[in-house]
């Protein structure tokens, strides 16, 4: 297990390096002068002297290779650089924004899990109709764009009913709509997978064994079904987390929540390269951690994985 963990960590470090490299060179392909982005962004009227000064200060006059290794060196020391637009430390900036997104995505992941599992347990093999209805709901949910769902929620729950705030407010109440918006499409995806796995489990010999032992259908679902339905959900959680980060870009914009998604969108719009790089690295890191954790949970939940 330790050796496995070590390999995973080494793999993670490699992925981080590759992400940094990829993003570094990809962002160099974006048309536009980084010095311009530093000096007030598009449309500003920075003087040639100021641009020259900035190129010198930020090392933009150096060859690309030197810039790359410089950036890599700083990265190794944990320095993500300075935001072009905000002139602040990217690491600190991202740290500020990270928690909001983390809370949002983890809450959405949990909610999606509960919805998906609940719906699957409720409708699978409850008869032809309920199975169809359940799976239809999942397919529909998975096909709903976040921004549309968010709008509908805002209109219904904020404007018409006035039950929930339309924008982020402190406390859990402000999380309800953003989390629902992120969770429902994801629940559609997870639900489809969980339903399949649950249906397999409910037809498997061990379920027959349990019934032969006198277990009720509810009992079979509760003691056996849940675990098997959850298993593919756990494996998918790494992917789901990445999808949630994408969704967070939209959801944070609609609900005016501070967070990495909004930071990313702003940074791309104004070509704030260090911030884009930083967000990419942090998302990759978060993704790697989540994957390692889910793999770990997978292995604990399902000993078959360790041996096969």
């Amino acid at each position, binding site marked *: 297990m330790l050796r496995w963990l070590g390999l995973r960590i080494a793999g993670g470090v490699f992925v981080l390096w590759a992400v940094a490299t990829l993003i570094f060179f990809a962002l160099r392909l974006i048309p536009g002068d980084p010095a311009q982005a530093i000096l007030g962004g598009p449309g500003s009227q*920075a*003087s040639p002297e100021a641009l020259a000064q900035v190129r010198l200060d930020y090392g933009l006059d150096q060859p690309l290779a030197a810039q790359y290794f410089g950036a890599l060196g700083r990265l190794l020391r944990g320095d993500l650089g300075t935001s072009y637009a905000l002139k602040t430390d990217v690491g600190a900036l991202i740290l500020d924004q990270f928690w909001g997104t983390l809370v949002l995505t983890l809450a959405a992941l949990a909610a999606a899990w509960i919805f998906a599992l609940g719906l699957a347990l409720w409708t699978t093999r409850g008869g032809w109709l309920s199975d169809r209805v359940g799976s239809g709901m999942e397919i529909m949910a998975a096909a709903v764009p976040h921004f549309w769902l968010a709008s509908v929620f805002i209109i219904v729950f904020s404007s018409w009913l006035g039950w929930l705030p*339309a924008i982020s407010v402190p406390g859990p109440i402000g999380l309800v709509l953003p989390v629902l918006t992120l969770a429902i499409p994801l629940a559609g995806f997870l639900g489809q997978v969980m339903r399949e796995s649950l249906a397999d489990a409910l037809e498997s010999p061990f379920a027959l064994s349990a019934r032969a032992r006198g277990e009720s259908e509810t009992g079979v679902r509760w003691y056996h079904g849940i675990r098997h339905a959850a298993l593919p959900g756990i494996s998918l959680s790494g992917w789901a987390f990445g999808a949630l980060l994408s969704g967070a870009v939209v959801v944070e914009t609609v609900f005016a929540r501070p967070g990495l998604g909004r930071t990313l969108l702003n940074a791309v719009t104004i070509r704030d390269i260090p911030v884009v790089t930083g967000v990419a690295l942090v998302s990759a890191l978060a993704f790697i951690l989540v994957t390692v954790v889910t793999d770990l949970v997978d292995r604990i939940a399902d000993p078959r994985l360790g041996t096969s």
Partner: protein
Amino acid sequence: MTLSTTKLRSSTLSALALGAGIALMTAGCSAQTSGDGTSSAPTSDAGPVAGGTLVYASGDAEPTCLDPHVGGNYPQALISTQYLESLVSKNTAGEIIPWLATTWTEDADGLGWEFALRDDVTFTDGTPFDAAAVAANIAHLKDPNTASSTGYLAVGKVKEVVAVDDHTVRLELSTPDSALLDSLSQPWVAIESPTALKRSQEENCASPVGTGPFIVDTWVKQDKVALVQNKDYNSPPADAGHTGAALIDRIEWRFIPDSASRYAALQAGQVDVIDNAQPDTIAAAADKNGIAELNAPRPGAANRIELNSSKAPFDDVKVREAFIRAAIVNDGINSLFFGTAERSYSLLSSVEALGLSTPEYFDTDLAQANNLLDAAGWAEHDADGYRVKGGERLSLTFPVSTNQSIPAEQSLFQQIQATVKAAGFEVVLEPMDLSSWYGALAAHEYNLVSAPYTKVGPDVLRILYHSASITPAPSGYFANLAQVNDPEVDALLDEASQVTDPAKRAELYENAQRLVLSQFYVLPLYDQQNHYLHSTAVQGLRAMPTVSTPTFYDVWLDR
């Protein structure tokens, strides 16, 4: 008195219904559009109450720096109006009035200005306000490291700043500048504490220090800026509603980019004031109790489409006229803006007293457009119904900034696209983000473009239509997007910027405007829309007559 046409219309209607005089007194029964920069909210019977927190929701991009010297855009002006003050201000009649400067005189040759400063004002960090502070601010604006764009242009002609004594400052100019007072009234040249300016730019951006009624307390990026009351405040402009400290304790300045969320938050009571209100919500809010509107068109240029005359096909005035004659704008404005915007036939905002309105150049006439195009050699049509000349399709590239053009405006462009098709124009709309949009302009990859420009006074004409403004900054940016390169226009604008005689100045500007308009460089649409919706609990809200930013100094909360 400068009233917007909107105001004129609504008051006229009211007057017809209720009789002159009473109409204005009772206009507050429901929320109505008023274009004079004061809110239409019903006035409360109770007197002003001190205290409370106001939540403001901005739809603009969050500024990257709270110091409007750095860069200098409208979102910065909006927020800095609450904590920074300028030397002079303007009243609703368009006259310059004292603020941090009490009196001023211009030298006979127009090359020197002397300002007497208030001697009882202190910055909120304790630094006294004096002549040295003014000098430090202008130096800060002119320092390339500040990277000022707007303020830098405003003080462009200031050669030297001399502190005559502690509370008298003299500005030496390189050439006379008739727009100097207008320029100095803008928030982008507001006066900041010289002590604070000595800090790093990162620090100064996060908490600029001024003399205003509020103080920047904290800035949580992507979330909000918290402003707190300046208890020792004593320097309101001459047209303010009261003296002493502001009435509310605190402002939470939030950034809600999504217009539907913003309006929903106002409806649900999570925010008190929103800006960039969309036309349909303004119309909807008019029927709602508890929500009022503040309409404050921005000064400077009207919103307009500029026709790039530097390259084919718009290098031919006939083609430009044909386009303008073919474009049907009014129907779209009526339906898309729900009566919240009035068609403009002027280069300048309706709040600019010297604006020239020429509806005669903008009659739509498809037959004439067709004739003009035939005459210009675009006589053939291709299979899709577009005109062609020498194998080239009459195609116009129209980059649209999704950050700057609101959805209704983007829809209007689509309608123009559809209507000019009847004359055989193909318009290719290219929505893009701000960086790409500036990139397209810098690369001259456009035939049509709509770019807002806010500046106090008619001097904006010089920036937008003088041939010198075709020369790009190092970033590639240039303001004369129609690429008007007319020595006659240049001469008129140069002279107007230097004369001191108001009548002469007005005449010069009128001639310049007529020249530009008659050559069909520009299709004016409407004023730069600047609508605010607010809860009726917000009392005493008004927009500064300078650049129409709302001020919360007189505001109190009737909750």
